[in-house]
């Protein structure tokens, strides 16, 4: 491994620099899994290289044209399903090999940290064998713990993004609403239990609106915490909050 790591970094750096190399991940996976037996012996190398690629792409100490870096990051983004499938395929066979399990979880953590996965992909990643780490070495335990932390953080971010996305789509469906104006500040939130992992559901998205420091002037909503309401299209048409910002002060 002493030579593998700097060689993997060197290859990752070439991938970042080399404009003409457009299919880095698929090329590497294909090269190292071409035939059954070599695929086995190349596993440490493949996992090390796949771990390093996202790190190199996100390392701004490497001076490279910003557009090239963006293309590499996009390529990694588009290749995430290939990596996910690979990790999934290796999950069971590597159960008894703690050294390779460590490489696999390191690779998974690197991708989860640097590449955007969907909620369902993150759920799939969470089924990797990180719970068996207690029976392995300290190195495996450390890598597995790191993987769990990175995964949990990503799942939290993903959940928050879904909520924001649900709010944005609810508002855009109903004509728009500005939560902040020169006179008053309002805070808005979406009940998390109403947001499905597959995306915002219009019929279930619920929005609450609270005035931060003053009573609204509208007689209809004189309670600081406005009632929770469903953003169905019918409700939205009759709701003063969703028509225009100025309606709040009408």
């Amino acid at each position, binding site marked *: 491994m002493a030579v*593998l790591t700097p060689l993997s970094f*060197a290859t990752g*750096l070439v991938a970042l620099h080399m404009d003409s190399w457009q299919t880095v991940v*698929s090329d590497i996976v*294909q*090269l190292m899994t071409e035939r059954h037996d070599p695929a086995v012996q190349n596993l*440490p190398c493949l996992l090390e290289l796949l771990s390093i690629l996202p790190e190199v792409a996100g390392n701004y100490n*490497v001076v490279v044209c910003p557009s090239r870096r963006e293309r590499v990051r996009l390529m990694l983004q588009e290749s995430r399903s290939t990596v996910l499938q690979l990790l999934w*395929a290796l999950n069971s066979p590597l159960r008894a090999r703690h050294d*390779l399990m460590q490489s696999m979880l390191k690779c998974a953590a690197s991708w989860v940290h640097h590449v955007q996965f969907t909620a369902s992909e993150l759920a799939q990643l969470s089924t990797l064998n990180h719970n068996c780490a207690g029976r392995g070495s300290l190195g495996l335990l450390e890598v597995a713990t790191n993987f769990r932390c990175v995964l949990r953080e990503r799942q939290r971010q993903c959940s928050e993004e879904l909520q924001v996305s649900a709010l944005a789509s609810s508002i855009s469906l109903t004509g728009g609403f500005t939560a902040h104006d020169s006179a008053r500040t309002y805070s808005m939130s979406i009940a998390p239990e109403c947001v499905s992992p597959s995306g915002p559901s219009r019929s279930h998205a619920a929005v609450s609106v609270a005035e931060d420091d003053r009573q609204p002037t509208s007689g209809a909503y004189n309670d600081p915490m406005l009632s929770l309401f469903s953003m169905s299209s019918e409700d939205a048409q009759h709701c003063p909050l969703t028509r225009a910002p100025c309606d709040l002060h009408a």
Partner: protein
Amino acid sequence: MEQVQQAFRALQAPDATSQQTQEATLWLDHFQGTLEAWRVADQLLCLATDDTTDAARIFAAQTLRYKIQYSWSELPVWAHESLRNTLLNHLIRNCQVAHASLHNVCIPPCMPPLAST
């Protein structure tokens, strides 16, 4: 390449003085910055693996990493693909060396479909 190996022999010699060690280190540092380092690093990585060459091979891998990160512009565009293929070959060759410990792992037939290049 012979000079690099000499420098490593000097570093690893049990009776090397601190001055000899320092001179060898300085020479290797300077060598990493030269154009010649691209070619010699590649040659060093082709050496057979044994205790006497391991340090030189690690140095060669680090040199390539250093050169690619900081001196990429030294390399003509026509050499990029060749360098990439060389690095991938070195990676695979190093994996084969360590293959003995992996004989009881097999990849299942549910391996993901591979994209064609």
